[in-house]
């Protein structure tokens, strides 16, 4: 009896937030799903139910190509970012003894500033007449500017890896910080040198952080269009750019909705499979 009352009071308090969030997400998604089954003629919507847009997604090769490229770029970016971030998180967790907070702030500060500007900074760096090229030219190391730097999938990966670094560092740091130091001492006492100790204790126990980091980077970057637009060039365009165009120049909203749905479903499926696989693998460490 009392418990129910407490739950009711709790939910009442939670209700404004819950209502806003659920409305803010469910309603838009519901209608986006609906629109994806429509057709658009100029500025009118033909609301008869049709799978035509989804058919286009599967039939027209460009969409699959963009989807695969987006997944590949996101995947590469995720791997690079997590690999680069792990040692950094490890350093702060285990080798910083004073002023840890300062380090944490330092690591995450760049992330909380304008995303647009950070991508733009890389455009400046990687550009034809940009920092790297003019610098190398000035030093006499190259004659012609390096072309592959900008307007390529590589540029997108580098820029994204830089922009999302903080999202990788924080979850990994938190899970490393939680590891009881006496477990590390126990492993050492039982015979582990530094490497074996890392593989046997530190890495397995930091796995939740790694999983969180990979998802936190992979999912948002799949849908990024700013970075490809600024530094991707024609070969670096991702699916999100196309979706944006559907709502802009191309003016085919149902198509855009269908593509957005396709992207979301693909990402959700991949994430679920990923979590399932890692759970199984983690369970086998016995």
């Amino acid at each position: 009896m009392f418990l129910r009352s407490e739950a009711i009071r709790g939910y009442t308090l939670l209700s404004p937030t819950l209502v806003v969030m659920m409305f803010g997400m469910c309603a838009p998604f519901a209608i986006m799903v609906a629109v994806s089954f429509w057709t658009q003629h100029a500025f009118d919507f033909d609301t008869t139910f049709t799978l035509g847009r989804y058919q286009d997604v599967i039939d027209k090769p460009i969409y699959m190509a963009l989807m695969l490229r987006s997944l590949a770029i996101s995947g590469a970016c995720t791997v690079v970012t997590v690999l680069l971030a792990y040692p950094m998180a490890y350093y702060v967790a285990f080798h910083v003894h004073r002023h840890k907070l300062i380090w944490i702030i330092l690591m995450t500060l760049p992330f909380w500033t304008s995303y647009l500007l950070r991508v733009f900074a890389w455009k400046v760096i990687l550009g034809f007449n940009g920092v790297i090229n003019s610098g190398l030219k000035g030093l006499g190391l190259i004659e012609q500017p390096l072309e592959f730097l900008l307007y390529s999938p590589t540029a997108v990966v580098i820029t994204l890896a830089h922009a999302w670094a903080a999202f990788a560092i924080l979850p990994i740091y938190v899970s490393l910080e939680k590891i009881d130091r006496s477990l590390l001492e126990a492993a050492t006492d039982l015979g582990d040198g530094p490497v074996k100790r890392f593989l046997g204790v530190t890495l397995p126990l930091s796995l939740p952080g790694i999983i969180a980091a990979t998802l936190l980077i992979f999912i948002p970057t799949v849908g990024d269009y700013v970075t490809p637009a600024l530094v991707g060039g024609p070969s670096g365009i991702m699916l999100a750019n196309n979706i944006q165009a559907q709502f802009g120049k191309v003016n085919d909203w149902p198509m855009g909705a269908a593509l957005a749905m396709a992207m979301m479903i693909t990402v959700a499926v991949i994430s679920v499979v990923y979590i399932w696989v890692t759970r199984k693998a983690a369970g086998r460490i016995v």
Partner: protein
Amino acid sequence: MSNNDAFIILTGVSKHFGPVVAVDDINLTISGGEFFSLLGPSGCGKTTLLRMLAGFESPTSGEIFIDDAPMSEVPPYQRPTNMVFQNYAIFPHLNVRANIGYGLRYDKLSKAELDRRIDESLEMVKLPGFGTRRSEELSGGQRQRVALARALVKRPKVLLLDEPLGALDKKLREEMQLELRALQESVGITFIFVTHDQEEALTLSDRVAVMARGKALQVASPQQLYNCPVSIEVADFIGQMNFIDARVIEVEGERAVLEARGLGRVRAVASADFVRQGAQVVVAVRPEKLSLSYESSSDGRCSVQGEMKTAAYLGDRSHIYVTVDGCEKPLSVAAQEVESSSGQPIERGSEVWISWADESLVLLPVA
């Protein structure tokens, strides 16, 4: 299994953490097969000393030798020691078997031998069949045994135990104490045991080092510590003790005569150099070495009259506090029953006589 009398040697070992001196010039020699305890209040340096033996801290000065080998350049994973941690440090991501077998991969055993040893150690700590359980499914006492098994399965030459029984409730703790002692005797290796519980240290150990403020105050067997403490600090830490100021009147060979406050003229064994004619000393006597009665003692023992103040009932015995004229604090007397020789219980405020034997008095230097 070695009975080397100088199996572990510490010479001049100190540890400084910045300005803080955690361990101050410790010199110890520990035999093989000995159950040796480090006893003291928290902050006395006993855990730091243990960690230096394990290799997790390195001494600021001094040397540690184990089995004739210097340990200064030897990292923890290469030392012939294994440790049972205070919080057990059971790996949460591995089950019990994997925990116990964790260190065995370095011993180059066949799979069959590995399994056999793990089974053996599970039997030894009375946890057969617990192999597939995980850390969160175990109680505190069970985790403690797994930690023990994990350390012992590697057959180290020295087992280091960091207050392993501290988190257990009293009954379980006493059970485990007996089991630990039996285990040590059957395995035969050196145990170094850190505790702040003096009863525990006295029960389990062959010898105890009483520590305070980083120094070793006295290193001796439990009997010696109890009956012949060398200072007020040690005497006070181990069990209960009555302290009375006194002045030495004369010394005759092994006997001294003293004038003690409140007790009057007493005789005691002259144990050390500080017992000189005219010196101020402290007379110390254990509560159970004092006897209480309504009459003055008739067998020639020293006695003194006092007034009974309060009694603390402890179940199997009582501590009776008697005020004696001239004594600063009431004397504590341990008695089985609070009765006079006529069978009547002694009442508060009644006049009583306390008596003792000369050999029961211990002389200690003034603090």
